[in-house]
């Protein structure tokens, strides 16, 4: 009955692909099956080589000028053809915004199930794959399994870690498929200017909330971040309402797992907390002693950011520059 075999990994974001391969390898070893990376693009031999040393037994490479940059219908048609042809049992796809839509469309073409934004993937005693996913705005964690194959899942950045570089190298197989005509046309691309840095990769994050009333006050957070060699992040209202940032942390924004998360003037509503849950240590500074953020903090300081943050800057300076 089981004509579906092996674990596949794809992401148009190469570093995310390597992370997914790490997890794919772990599951494949337990199932004694193969891991295949899918690499699409133009002049991407190097990326295929790299995938082959970070856990893939096999790399299906489609190198085509039409795949130079992400285009949903072209990428979708390439993945659909490969999936129909080689029938993977499990297909893990990077959970970028484009990746998520791609996964859902692929699953529709294959008439199968897709679980987005998995925070965990495990095997049951019967060796069935189960996924965990945050639901109800962070109040619940659902455990879900697939009823049909292939099993499609999307994996957010920094959920899993890439393997150490391995000597053992997978086989690269170059393929050709027919690509669909695009239904959409990209006119312009504009990088986000304000926060250039990927907070997902930050070890320390100083995060600002609505407790910052004036834009000038952000200088406080930036100075603290500088002393700690940290990145500055924010809650959604600072980005969406005040437009001081272009990105935010939380359920609908970036999910982060730094060693240290310092929440300044953030109330700690569930949608924000859902994005910081995996931080190693959480520090919260808030003038309201009943702020929900204190329920999920390791260290709580009740006070005004205008008083506490300058004191913190001094204290960190004193100890870190010794």
């Amino acid at each position, binding site marked *: 009955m089981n004509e579906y075999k092996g674990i596949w990994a794809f992401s148009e974001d190469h570093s995310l692909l390597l992370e997914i391969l790490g997890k794919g390898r772990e599951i494949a070893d337990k199932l004694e099956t193969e891991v295949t990376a899918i690499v699409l693009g133009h002049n991407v031999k190097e990326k295929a080589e790299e995938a082959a040393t970070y856990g893939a037994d096999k790399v299906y490479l489609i190198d085509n000028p039409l795949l130079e940059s992400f285009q949903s219908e072209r990428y979708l048609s390439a993945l659909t053809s490969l999936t129909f042809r080689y029938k993977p049992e499990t297909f893990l796809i990077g959970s970028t915004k484009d990746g*998520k839509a791609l996964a859902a469309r692929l699953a529709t073409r294959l008439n199968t199930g*897709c679980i987005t*934004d998995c925070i965990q993937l495990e095997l049951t005693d019967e060796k069935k794959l189960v996924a965990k996913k945050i639901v109800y*705005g962070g109040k619940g*964690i659902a*455990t*879900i399994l697939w009823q049909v194959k292939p099993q499609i899942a999307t994996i957010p950045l920094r959920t899993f870690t890439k393997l150490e570089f391995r000597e053992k190298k997978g086989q690269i197989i170059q393929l050709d498929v027919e690509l669909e005509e695009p239904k959409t046309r*990209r006119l312009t691309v504009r990088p*986000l200017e304000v926060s250039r840095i990927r907070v997902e990769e930050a070890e320390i994050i100083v995060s600002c909330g609505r407790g910052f009333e004036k834009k000038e006050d952000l200088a406080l957070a930036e100075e603290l971040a500088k002393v700690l060699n940290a990145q500055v992040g924010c809650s959604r209202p600072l980005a969406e309402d005040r437009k001081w940032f272009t990105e935010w942390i939380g359920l609908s924004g970036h999910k982060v797992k730094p060693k240290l998360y310092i929440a300044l003037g953030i109330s700690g509503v569930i949608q924000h907390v859902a994005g910081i849950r995996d931080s190693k240590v959480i520090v919260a500074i808030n003038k309201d002693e009943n702020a929900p953020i204190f329920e999920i903090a390791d260290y709580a300081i009740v006070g005004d950011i205008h008083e506490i943050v300058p004191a913190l800057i001094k204290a960190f300076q004193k100890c870190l520059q010794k």
Partner: protein
Amino acid sequence: MLRVIVCLKQAIDVTQLKMDSKTLRLMTEEAPRKISDFDKNALEEAIRIKECLGCEVVTVTVTAEEAKTTVKEALAMGADRAYVIKDPKIAGIDTLTTAKILAEAIKRLGAFDLILCGEASIDSFSGQVAARLAEILGIPLLTSANKVIVKDSDIIVERNLSSRYETVKAKMPALVSVTWGINQPRIPSLMAIMKASKKEIVEWNIEDLGFTSEKLESSDMTIEILDVSVPKIERKKRKLEGENAAETAEKLVKALIQEGVIGGGDF
């Protein structure tokens, strides 16, 4: 005239979702329902297109429960008509089936130019239904819209892709999913609420759309939710206090060094 369809999910108001302290389960049945947040943004966008270019705005909701109150809010905001596909058999269906039902309903509504969805629903947060629906209907999909412009038979969308913005163009009919930042949904006036009571709510059940109950049975589902647990949060919750800010700050620095999250081994 242009025709804009808004897919409106009646979702659990997650901010009011409580845990039963005895069973440690979430009380999803008891929690209030509302229009899923992003869908309200989608509706607002549709109404703005109506105000700007003139169009008909209809909403479609697939639900297992009573949704009159929710849908009335949409009509008060400015939708012209609401379709509710209501059937107890819909409880627990997956995103593929939801999209199939939406597609079937939309086909029955006749020609349309634009479908607007939310980027994700607040309760299940799957972010799949819009993509699946576009795929079933075979129309262009433009996700994470931050700005929508209708120009002749084209739709131009600015997409917010967390590391960049993209402007993308497609021919209508098309499906656009919107993010939270696209607009500020209006709060309907009392007048609008009164006027809305005269607007039409069309209710269909599953059989009306040609689905059989067997087809909706769990054997046909692509995924199965085994369990929903409440995440345990194990944090130290230590309150730091000092004579003054400087002393409090010192305490925090010491604690963080002990945790090993700041500094090297130099101090």
